[in-house]
């Protein structure tokens, strides 16, 4: 397949999703509303999951044959950026971009549709348990009469707190995936520092029948890992843009030494640097989206690694100056800035480390 990087404008459908998402965030995700949601137990299905299903967001990136909208990464990008900037607590990326992608890729079409139906209907959450490279060595499967016996504990499973089932990557003559109902595992639910619900899941002694096991899962897990990374990058892109916007608004209003701090040249030049970061993040994430849609796997992965490195570096620079120019106010819980910063700290750890991606990129040079 030849790459078709054209940076095309978003389609009408993509813009429609984005507009709806902006309205949704404005209506339902004020800081006060969000803070009330955070008071709910992490194990509950997050409040707006069913509504997100109604709006079609949960299946946006899934094939139409599986009940999705069949949108390409480029076309999903604006939606995910808005949800990222809106600090939504629903696990859209882990459940729908990552886990549902693996299911759609791995299972026969009709089976996949059946399995995905309750997820896309907003009735439940299912998430993947796998490492950043698509494989998680922490869980192992041992053949026993009647199927497989699992052992191992995985920490920090995103979206795992309220999941109805886990899709667990294991090694059975190569990459395989087992579906484990949450009730059978030992789930310790908690929130991360950005408020997202996650879980530590212990699989020791879980028995899994053969009809809940799919082997030959390498390609599906890779696709899931790439979608997970892409989702984190897209959310980061939305947040970086939102932090620039918030900082810009602040420096135009806030006065010190008799004039708005945005009149000071140092502030102006560093906001120009924040702007450059936002533009470069936007470009790299869009590039990653285009590469995922049309590029051979080695080049696609290389560009995803490049996007991860650049996006992470830019996000950190923007975090620094967004807080700095908000001054003390930027450090409080009362403005969105601090919440965005915490979300970015968590997203920065998604999909592998900077060092790992830089090395992977470099090795493929």
């Amino acid at each position, binding site marked *: 397949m030849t790459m078709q990087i054209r940076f095309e404008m978003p389609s009408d459908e993509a813009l429609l999703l984005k507009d709806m998402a902006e309205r949704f965030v404005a209506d339902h995700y004020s800081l006060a509303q969000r803070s009330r949601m955070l008071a709910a137990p992490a194990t509950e299905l997050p409040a707006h999951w069913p509504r997100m299903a109604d709006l079609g967001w949960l299946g946006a990136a899934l094939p139409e044959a599986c009940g999705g909208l069949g949108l390409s990464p480029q076309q999903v990008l604006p939606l995910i950026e808005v949800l990222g900037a809106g600090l939504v607590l629903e696990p859209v990326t882990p459940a729908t971009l990552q886990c549902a992608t693996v299911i759609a890729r791995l299972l026969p079409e009709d089976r996949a549709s059946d399995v995905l139906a309750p997820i896309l209907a907003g009735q439940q959450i299912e998430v993947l348990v796998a490492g950043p490279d698509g494989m998680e060595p922490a869980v192992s499967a041992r053949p026993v009469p009647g199927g497989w016996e699992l052992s191992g504990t995985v920490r920090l499973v995103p979206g795992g707190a309220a999941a109805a089932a886990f899709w667990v990557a294991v090694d059975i003559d190569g990459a395989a995936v087992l579906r484990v109902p949450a009730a059978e595992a030992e789930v310790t639910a908690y929130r991360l520092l950005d408020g997202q619900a996650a879980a530590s899941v212990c699989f020791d002694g879980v028995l899994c029948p053969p009809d809940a096991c799919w082997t030959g899962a390498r390609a599906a897990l890779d696709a899931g890992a790439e979608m997970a990374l892409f989702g984190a990058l897209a959310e980061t892109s939305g947040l970086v843009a939102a932090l620039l916007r918030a900082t810009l608004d602040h420096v135009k209003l806030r006065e010190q030494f008799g004039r708005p701090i945005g009149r000071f040249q140092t502030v102006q030049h560093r906001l120009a640097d924040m702007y450059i970061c936002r533009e470069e993040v936007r470009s790299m994430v869009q590039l990653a989206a285009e590469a995922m849609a049309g590029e051979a796997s080695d080049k696609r992965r290389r560009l995803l690694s490049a996007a991860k490195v650049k996006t992470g570096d830019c996000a950190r620079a923007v975090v620094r100056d967004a807080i700095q120019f908000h*001054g*003390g106010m930027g450090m409080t819980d009362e403005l969105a800035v601090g919440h965005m910063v915490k979300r970015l700290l968590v997203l920065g750890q998604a999909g592998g480390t900077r060092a790992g991606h830089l090395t992977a990129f470099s090795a493929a040079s």
Partner: protein
Amino acid sequence: MTDLLITPEDDAFRKQIRDFAARELDPDTRAKVARGAPLSREDFLGWHLSLHAVGWVAPSWPTEHGGPGWTARQRMIADEEFFRQHCPPMPGFGLKMIGPILIRFGSADQQARFLPRILSGEDWWCQGFSEPGAGSDLASLRTRATRIDGGWIVSGSKTWTTYAQYANWIFCLVRTDPQVKKQQGISIMLIDMATPGVSRRPIRLMDGTEEVNEIFLDDVFVPDALVVGEVNMGWTYAKALLEHERLGIGGVGRSKHLLERVRGMARAAGLDDDHETRSRLAALEIDIIAVEATTLRLLAAAEAGRPLGAETSLLKIRGTEIQQALTELALDIAGQSALPAAESGCLEPPFENVAYQFLNWRKLSIYGGSNEIQRSILAAQVLGL
């Protein structure tokens, strides 16, 4: 971590400090400091009392007011060694701020009344300088005092008041003459937090702590006896205060402490042989040595009679840049281990305070005159630009 202060006399003094800390510091407090956790009032106060018992609680005070008579070099060694022994870094509002102001500008009555209670820990002071909407621009102050018989009626609000929840006294910058230009017409007043009209609202920070507060002053009566020095001279006094302890501003002890903690994290994460981690740690250690060497060089010049000027702003800038870089390195080393929320119960040592410290220490480049202000000070006062 390389020490530079190690002449034989230095070593003897350092040992005295180390032995004292090893003997006197509460083990729970020590453990909290060692892992970078937030400290309670009791943590601070316990250590305060230990220091007070041997007369070491106010290193920079003259002996006649209860200081230990240490040289600047000894104070630096003590600061470094206390950090190394995981002693709590003492909040400076009483010991390093209002104390020295009263010693220099306070009345004999004020000195007699307040200084002993600062030393003994009976009074906990907080600082009322910043105001909502003012930040580093202290001169644009809006809290206002109106003259009445025997004193003043003060109204306004203060913010970023650290540990006001522990404090029973606050010293405030207050506008006593609204007619004159910005920096003039400001006074320093001492206010009992129990005075009618004083109230407090905690500010929750993004790191989850509530160490800072907003303080509201609604028609609070302040008798003349609680105005420091002359009326309308507050800005001058405050500036003198900002110049106090200037050589400690580089925070070398704090940086070394954090560097060692981050090095321990690298070991715990199995990254002690990772090339990039090693390089970043080494470069930051060198940066710390540069700040320490610069501090010592300025100290030597000061001891040789060259007055210290605004050049100490460079210590603030570089010291805070280093400390913030260390918190970022800690984040990178901890990786996902830093991500659970503080209240999740899922954070494990040595990474449990990594995110907290990254978030909390963003303040270092904002408060005490932001690093942008410090650069402007260097440009204007040192370079003549």
